[in-house]
């Protein structure tokens, strides 16, 4: 992406997110209390984050690659099972990938 395209993405994305926040405060909210709507919204968040985990771990552009990111993610998962705080999870994953790459893994 060119710097200009990134700027457009940053500003348009911010505008969309602020508009959504404002809509919640301004639009009468009875429809939002509907269990079906609330459940769908919660699941969209789950699906987006899960898909982002997958893409961020095994995609390189449009190629699927297995590299140091996968074992690093496994370490992060173990840290989460052990209830480690966010920064510990992230740092352990980065450290794992950095060490594996220093040892020659792609």
């Amino acid at each position, binding site marked *: *992406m060119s710097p200009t395209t*990134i*700027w*457009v*993405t*940053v*500003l348009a*994305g*911010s*505008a*969309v*997110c*602020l508009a*959504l*926040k*404002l809509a*919640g*405060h*301004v639009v009468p*909210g009875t429809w*939002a209390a509907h*269990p*079906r709507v*609330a*459940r*769908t*919204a919660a*699941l*969209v968040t*789950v*699906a*987006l*984050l*899960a*898909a*982002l*985990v*997958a*893409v*961020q*771990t*095994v*995609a*390189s552009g*449009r*190629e699927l690659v297995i590299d140091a*990111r996968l074992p*690093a993610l496994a370490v992060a998962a173990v840290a*989460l099972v052990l209830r480690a*705080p*966010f*920064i510990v*999870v*992230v740092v352990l*994953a*980065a450290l*794992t*990938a*950095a060490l594996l*790459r220093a040892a020659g893994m792609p």
Partner: protein
Amino acid sequence: MASADDRSRVGRGGAEGRVADVERSTALRAALAVGIAVSAYGLSFGALATASGLDVWQTCVLSLFMFSGGSQFALVGIVGTGGSAASAIATAGLLGIRNGFYGVQLSPLLAVRSWRRVLAAHLTIDESTAVATAQPTVRLARVGFWLTGAGVFVLWNAFVLAGAIAGNALGDPKRYGLDAAASAAFLALLWPRLRTPLARYVAAGAVVVAVVLTPAVPSGVPVLVAAVLAVVVGWWSGRGHAHPATEDGEAR
């Protein structure tokens, strides 16, 4: 990130005697925990954003104006993996929908108008909503919302700047495993939202869809298709447990 434990601690406390002191000190402890978590989170976001190709200015403008961690991580993640501007904006927006649901809950609680309403909307995020809705009285809820919102805003943006400068200085992000840190960050955001079986099925389905589609469609699109899957499942499944939007809002 306010954990469920922090929130229940804030929410407890009674209404009499020296309880006010106890309440204030537990609220302070919760605020401190949220503050430390947000600072660490901002630091990693700043570093990851610059690793994904944003410069320090773009990273800071994004944090100031989007001000929603999940959406920001998604946007830079898709920019970093070569997705289009449209898919980056769409994904950030879809992740921002939950803030709209928080607004629905907060609006009657805060009862503000005009520019204060816009400010309240901007500060409507996981942390401020969690703290506000956990308070026993409307007055404390308002105090909790504004303090947490303002505190997180200041700390988040300061540490994003620090992270962006540090990330810029580091050089090749892969050498330091910053790409793996991004995966771990998304996993950490996802983790507390996997409490119901339905959420776990949808997460597994989203992973499969994203991986299968990656070689077939442009970058960024697999993530959006996974969101469509969630809409279909959420709308037509009757057996999932519905819960208020904040219930799953532990991390931004």
